[in-house]
């Protein structure tokens, strides 16, 4: 099978085509990550941990040592691995539920400790794999499976902004979007470079979820552009 | 085999003297097992210590009746009266008896330690003092006056 030259070398061919929904943001984020790993030449050093939720589908995405963990426990597993083998580039890859709800204390504490791992959070503002329920990043009035009347309960959690209040000054925090993948790619590269300098790095990627947003292609793009009003992109 | 139960309030130094006694027995090549028993509060509350010393191996740290029962605070009696047997020797600390031999409060637990050892003829004075000095080495270094007072108490 002839491989498109744009696919990263660290892809695992046997697991393709991938299992993400059509239009999902994950494959874009992962492709950018793969390209960064290729270009930095660090494939023999990268270890990837993925959460439960749609991120779990990345377990065999790459030809890189990867493990799924329990929901919300990706970050502490990454921390343990990095402590044992500091030479590796350890990446924790999770969704907004794993990072900001069930695993929030790990996200916060790891940042507080400036643990030298790289956390990538794919934020689609809801719990996709379980059918689209409320998440800490659900925006006001958003309709989800558990807020059928529109969310009004609590403030929307903005991860990088929150982390910046407790992060080390050398830590790297950024938010990109799958709508601008090449910009996101730059953030991912910086995030890995910062790990090499032994500091904490965090990149949130605003991401498409047409399946749970129940949007067609055009509305999906409109939706994510709208979300950028709540979730500012850039470096923090 | 000799079974010693020490009771007092948290902060009175019950555990320290229990540990010293057990360590002294170890120095004397005897077998000893010591276990503390207390609740969650750092101060106040009841503090119990069980010490068993024997020539052969001690495997279970608690017992039904004490051979020697030392009580450092009146309020602790309630918790330990069931450990009184027909032959139990009872020692009450200066907080109850008022007999402090002119020594300050912070040494009263050591006074009781001395009395326990005398009552049970458990270990030699030499090993008791060595265990005391080893256990409180840190405190004695910071506070040489305390060392003087504690040695006075253990030699009463």
């Amino acid at each position: 099978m002839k491989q498109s030259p744009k696919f990263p070398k660290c892809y695992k061919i046997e697991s393709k085509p991938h299992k993400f929904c059509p239009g999902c943001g994950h494959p874009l984020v992962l492709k950018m990550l793969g390209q960064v790993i290729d270009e930095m030449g660090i494939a023999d050093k990268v270890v990837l941990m993925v959460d439960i939720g749609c991120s779990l589908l990345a377990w065999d995405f790459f030809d890189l040592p990867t493990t799924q963990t329990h929901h919300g426990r990706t970050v502490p597993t990454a921390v343990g691995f990095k402590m044992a083998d500091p030479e590796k580039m350890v990446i924790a890859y999770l969704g907004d539920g794993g990072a900001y709800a069930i695993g929030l204390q790990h996200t916060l504490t790891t940042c507080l400790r400036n643990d030298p791992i790289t956390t990538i959070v794919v934020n689609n503002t809801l719990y996709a794999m379980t059918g689209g329920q409320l998440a800490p990043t659900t925006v006001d009035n958003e309709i989800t499976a558990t807020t059928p009347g529109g969310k009004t309960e609590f403030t929307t959690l903005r991860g990088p902004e929150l982390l910046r209040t407790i992060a080390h000054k050398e830590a790297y925090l950024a938010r990109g979007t799958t709508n601008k993948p090449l910009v996101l790619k730059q953030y991912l590269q910086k995030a890995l470079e910062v790990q090499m300098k032994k500091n904490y790095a965090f990149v949130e990627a605003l991401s498409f979820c047409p399946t749970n947003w129940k949007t067609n292609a055009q509305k999906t793009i409109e939706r994510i552009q709208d979300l950028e009003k709540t979730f500012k992109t850039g470096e923090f | 085999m000799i079974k010693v139960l020490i009771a007092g309030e948290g902060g009175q130094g019950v555990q320290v003297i229990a540990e010293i006694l057990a360590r002294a027995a170890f120095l004397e090549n005897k077998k000893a097992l010591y276990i503390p028993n207390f609740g969650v509060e750092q101060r106040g509350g009841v503090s119990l210590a069980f010490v068993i010393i024997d020539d052969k191996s001690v495997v279970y740290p608690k017992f039904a009746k004490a051979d020697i029962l030392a009580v450092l605070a009146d309020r602790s009696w309630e918790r330990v009266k069931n450990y009184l047997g027909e032959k139990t020797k009872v020692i009450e600390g200066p907080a109850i008896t008022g007999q402090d031999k002119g020594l300050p409060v912070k040494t009263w637990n050591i006074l009781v330690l001395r009395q326990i050892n005398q009552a049970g003829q458990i270990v030699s004075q030499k090993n008791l003092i060595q265990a005391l000095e080893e256990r409180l080495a840190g405190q004695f270094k910071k506070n040489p006056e305390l060392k003087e007072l504690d040695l006075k108490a253990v030699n009463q």
Partner: protein
Amino acid sequence: MKQFLMGNKILAQAAKDAGAKIMFGYPITPSTEILETWAKFCLKDKSLKILQTEDEMAAGFGVIGSCLAGVPAFTATAGPGNILMQDALVMAEALRIPMVTMMMQRGGMSTSTVIYSQEEVRLTCFGGNSEGFRIVYSTSNLQELYDYTLKAFQMAWKYRWPTFVLADGYQGKMMGEVEISNSKLPLTNLKPILTKGVNLRNCYNLEEEIGEKIADYNDEYQQTRSEIEEYEDYQTKDAKIILLAHGIVAAAVKIAVDKLRKRGLSIGLFRPITLRPFPTQAAVKILDKAEKIIVIESAIGQLAELFKAELFGLNTTLIEINKPALGFTPEEIDKQVCFFADAQK
């Protein structure tokens, strides 16, 4: 070399001597001294590391992370911490991670006391949403805290089941003599688990996929159990009454057995040392000849349950003496056993 140490310090020393390099933990009585002692070790020995985590889940998954990198790590907890630790423990079962945990049982039911019970047997053996593919050593004295911790690391890395030293607050806090070993055995298969070409998952799609995997694990567990099972047979030969106890209760039972034998009672003790895998074969052989079996534990039937599950069909009269969260002195055991044995005092 003989030393005078607290149980928890012995556990930390044993982990170090076993080859552990990292401890992850969250302070919880009565296990906290293990973490504190390890912290002191780290000051002197720069090859050792410690992480006090934000909770027990982070501690457990930290251990998993380290084991995945091929570096032996461990944790210690108790009570409510045991419950939180199950999150990591069951993933260790699923992914065959040699995670070692020291479980210092404290009072049962919720926060309870910080002191003692034997009420975490069920949780430690079967606390995951799984079939309990674990190795659980129930220690009964200070020397065993040391010896079985060394063994726990050996067996964990050899057989790849999460392995436990199941003790309690009494053993953790008591101080006495222990023989610290000078010889250090290297661990088997000490190499990274998560390497190139390895993609691990614990989430499956269809019933058939996971059903087969669990069945495979079970086959392996059953086939290797005889290499792992351990028990102690104390005076059971010709005994008409056999007492069944584990952990520190077994230590008190032994003293009672000696006293009762002196008074002419035909009595012995069968003590499982591994609660998982339970020493079933040995138990069947030894207990078959008894007229009465009396189970004695500081819980309500948790040991008895393990026993009944493994020895279903045994016709012997079974009596259970349950004292949840309370210890047994040898005198009490003597009294209770006499009552049930209809013997003279």
